């Protein structure tokens, strides 16, 4: 149901003209509104918050679709924010919401009945397009902040490799609209961890599209009197690419299955599986983008050809919510701490027994 509606929405509404307008700075309001009307923004939020109450596995096609159709929307961020807000019993505001996993330098201080935030975060996805941000704080709270607070919220606009508007956000005593304890206390860094799963799913979608395009191009493009796909050198590259895409897909689908849904909120394997998915998808993105470009030759290097809309997204998303090396470091620390005795049990149970850390 979710799968069909997301597929239809993106297939019918995302085209080259929309992407060009988007990269020229136009916010795709119609596409956003259609997504919101179909409930995609609140897919992960509980029904009592007006959402669908879907599991991450059920919502996976939306995230994958963002990559497959290269839909330029802060939908992943909004879905995650809405899930955390609704789990915490807070109201979900209208419109796009971005997310921040704050570092130790971001301090929340009590002010009357509310909170005021001071600190900064760089490369906040879609910061320029969103009215709201959900901040996950190191003190174990989450807070919702209105980004339109002149004087206390400063945004330095950035554009990422994909052409998506991000921004560096600085809070100087910014008022919080609402706050609550992290509703998933078993999950460390909930925004970064769930963001990593979402980015992995988006990369899988973009890679699946790239693989289809590359196979199609190899079958169509004729050189030396035959399709280039007849060459073993091309076949071997595309076969390797298929393996990378399949690996990223499996890792990501498992991570979605291990992500907390609104009903059970089980986070036992979430951190481990998110790390695995982000590492494996990030690695696959690097290799798949390279092979797709090599197969497409010079035409794929033009702006006019659509290949770059997917490959630039892969290069942006492999960095988002912790690059593969960042997550590999976390996994490696836990694996070394577990040692030869604890490693394999961690692989089969999908979590490291490290007393709550990592």
């Amino acid at each position, binding site marked *: 149901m979710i799968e069909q509606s997301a597929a239809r929405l993106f297939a019918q509404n995302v085209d080259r003209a929309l992407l060009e307008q988007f990269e020229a700075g136009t916010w795709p309001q119609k596409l956003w509104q259609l997504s919101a009307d179909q409930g995609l923004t609140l897919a992960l939020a509980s029904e009592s918050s007006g959402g669908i109450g879907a599991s991450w596995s059920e919502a996976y096609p939306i995230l994958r679709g963002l990559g497959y159709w290269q839909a330029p929307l802060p939908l992943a961020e909004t879905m995650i924010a809405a899930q955390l807000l609704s789990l915490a019993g807070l109201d979900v505001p209208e419109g796009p919401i971005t997310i921040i996993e704050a570092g130790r330098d971001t301090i929340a201080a009590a002010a009357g009945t509310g909170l005021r935030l001071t600190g900064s975060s760089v490369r906040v996805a879609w910061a320029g397009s969103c009215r709201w941000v959900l901040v996950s704080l190191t003190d174990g709270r989450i807070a919702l902040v209105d980004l339109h607070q002149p004087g206390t919220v400063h945004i330095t606009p950035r554009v990422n490799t994909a052409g998506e508007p991000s921004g560096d956000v600085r809070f100087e005593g910014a008022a919080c609209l609402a706050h609550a304890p992290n509703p998933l206390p078993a999950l460390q860094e909930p925004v970064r961890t769930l963001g990593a799963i979402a980015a992995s799913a988006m990369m899988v979608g973009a890679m699946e599209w790239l693989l*289809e395009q590359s196979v199609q191009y190899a079958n169509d493009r004729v050189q030396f009197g035959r399709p280039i796909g007849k060459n073993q050198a091309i076949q071997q590259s595309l076969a390797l690419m298929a393996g990378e895409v399949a690996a990223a897909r499996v890792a990501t689908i498992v991570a979605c299955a291990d992500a907390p849904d609104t009903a059970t909120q089980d986070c036992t394997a979430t951190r481990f599986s998110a790390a695995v998915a982000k*590492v494996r998808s990030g690695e696959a993105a690097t290799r798949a983008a390279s092979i797709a470009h090599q197969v497409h030759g010079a035409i794929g290097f033009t702006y006019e050809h659509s290949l770059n809309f997917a490959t630039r997204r892969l290069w942006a998303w492999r960095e988002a919510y912790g690059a593969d090396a960042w997550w590999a470091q976390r996994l490696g620390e836990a694996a*070394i701490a577990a*040692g030869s005795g604890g490693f394999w049990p961690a692989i089969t149970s999908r979590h490291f027994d490290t007393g709550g850390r990592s």
Partner: protein
Amino acid sequence: MQTVTIDPCTLPPACEVLRTEVRTFIAETLAGYPAAKRVRNWSGADPAFSKRLGARGWIGMTWPKRYGGHERSLLERYVVMEEMLAAGAPVGAHWVAERQSALLLMRLSPEVLAPRIVPSIARGETYFCIGMSEPDTGSDLASVRTRAVHTEAGWVVNGRKVWTSGAHRAHYMIALVRTGTQGELRHAGLSQLLVDMKTPGLTVRPIINQLGEHDFNEVTFDDVLVPHEHLIGVEGDGWSQVSGELAFERSGPERYLSSSQLLLEMLDAADTKETRHTVALGRITASYATLRQMSLGVSGMLARGENPALAAALVKDQGALVEQAMPDIAHDLFGGVAPPGSALAHALSYTARAVPSFSLRGGTREILRGIIAKGLGLR
């Protein structure tokens, strides 16, 4: 375009109960089993260990009881296999017989050969080797020249097989032989025969590998007489029968776990404060977790009766990349600094010499990628 997708498969709770039993068994049975032997992984063979596994009911777990099997699920079998491999248990003696030979006999000779032989495979007493490669037949399996001629007394086999792993300890070989002409169809005229390794005229000579070990062999057939009823399946159908067998040969967890002992040694030698260590070992951890899900996914396909040939080729290709990267990563992190004589230094040296075979055995990387490319709709 056909997409190659593998869906993950969730293990039922019963599997985790079994896993605990297997871990306890391994801890007891292999206590003191040295790292220098564990490093051999499924190339390590110990008939006594195979018989103990058979006695526990952990060989032929999925087979019908009439063949000495235990009628448990494919996923339960998967759990036993992955636990054995992760521990470096010496499962090599019975591995091939359990993985593919018994299946072939039960499927294609259910009344004659299977009842006679399969129960002893399930007991861990009878071992098989696979007679496919020949001096002039490597990846191009259809070019097999070992010939079997139908006579009144039986099939008379002449020819030569090479790279036959475990032929020196196997009781039987399933040999791919030429019984007809190749003709228009390259794959025509091939058949599979069950050959008793004690038959007169059959000679096994060791071929020592670059590890200095005796694993594979040259097997010559000099007028070897094979009974008529030892023809497996249908005369001339050898190619399609072998293709079905290869899916099982390629799909298991042994296709990514072969270098596990070196990984474990690295984990014990590594430092959580050293970024080079954590990033490299974290990447392997992610690959292990992913390959396990892919491999399990293929088992799920088998359990649902789907054809996993394409997915199996893909998992084996991905698995070999990780198994083969292991000694290179170990060299990067510990080359020249692992203490001489340490388990790590031994595992590094051993695994570096072992891994070139991982993308050759069971279908070369190039052949597997050719299969995948075809599946993608290329050529």
